């Protein structure tokens, strides 16, 4: 309960991005996250919106980033990969279970 009072609640976009990073595991970077959200949820999202959510999640300590190798097709720019921290995994799991508990049985697949 104390934890619930202290923590910052996640917005809709942040939650979607967090769950997508969880789903993609080591392969989560800007484009892959955008494509996964588009495939699974049907939302076409701007990359800047996704990176903005990733910044906020990193500030909250829920994800961490690592840089990949620069490639020629990216004009020498590296990819930044994201994965969940222990706190991020706990947040993703608890939010997912809370939503599943709250949803009416008829809404469950």
């Amino acid at each position: 309960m104390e934890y619930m009072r202290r923590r910052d609640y996640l917005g809709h976009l942040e939650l979607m991005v967090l769950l997508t990073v969880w789903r993609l595991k080591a392969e989560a970077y800007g484009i892959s996250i955008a494509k996964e959200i588009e495939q699974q949820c049907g939302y076409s999202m701007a990359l800047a919106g996704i990176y903005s959510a990733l910044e906020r999640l990193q500030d909250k300590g829920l994800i961490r980033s690592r840089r990949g190798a620069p490639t020629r097709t990216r004009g020498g720019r590296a990819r930044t990969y994201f994965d969940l921290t222990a706190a991020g995994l706990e947040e993703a799991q608890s939010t997912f279970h809370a939503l599943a508990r709250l949803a009416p049985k008829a809404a469950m697949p």
Partner: protein
Amino acid sequence: MKERRVPPLALALLRRFGGRFSESLEGDMLEEFAAGRSLLWCWHQGLSAALVHAKLLLRQRMVAFIAAALFFAAALWSLAPATAPVMDWARTVESLRLLIQLGWLAGVPFLLGSVAGAAERSRVGAILLGAGLAYMTPITAPFDSAVCDLCVGPGSAVIPDAVRWLTPLCSALLAGLGAWTVTRISSSHREFPA
């Protein structure tokens, strides 16, 4: 056949407004463009980055925006006669028209500067943006005439157009002052790179 290239301005928008991961964002755009995305998609990404940045700043600096708007409203209100007797008196006083016009010419650039100060990330950038916007102030001349007509009654402009078009320098200085004021207010309660 002409080689397809990512629009440099779209790329520059990502670089400027992409935040902490702007380099990755640029790389993502180049990668997707190489994979066959359209020029329109690139522009959408660049403009979205600017929009996301603006929304973020608006949320973070709402207080500064409201303060700038209130200051402008108070400045206009203090110049405009508020009660009927004052209105009647005002209709006979031509110098009030001059006051209102001067107030407009000073208030608008200060407001533009304040908004730029609230929106821009660096103090120097805010001052330059505010000053640049203030050069547009003479375009708003019909509006100050309208305010005059509303408050004082119909009449001709007191400030000649020739003089009005010489005011951008003063306007730019006022806008710079507005931007500087708001960035000072902002920097007093949050990190603000100089």
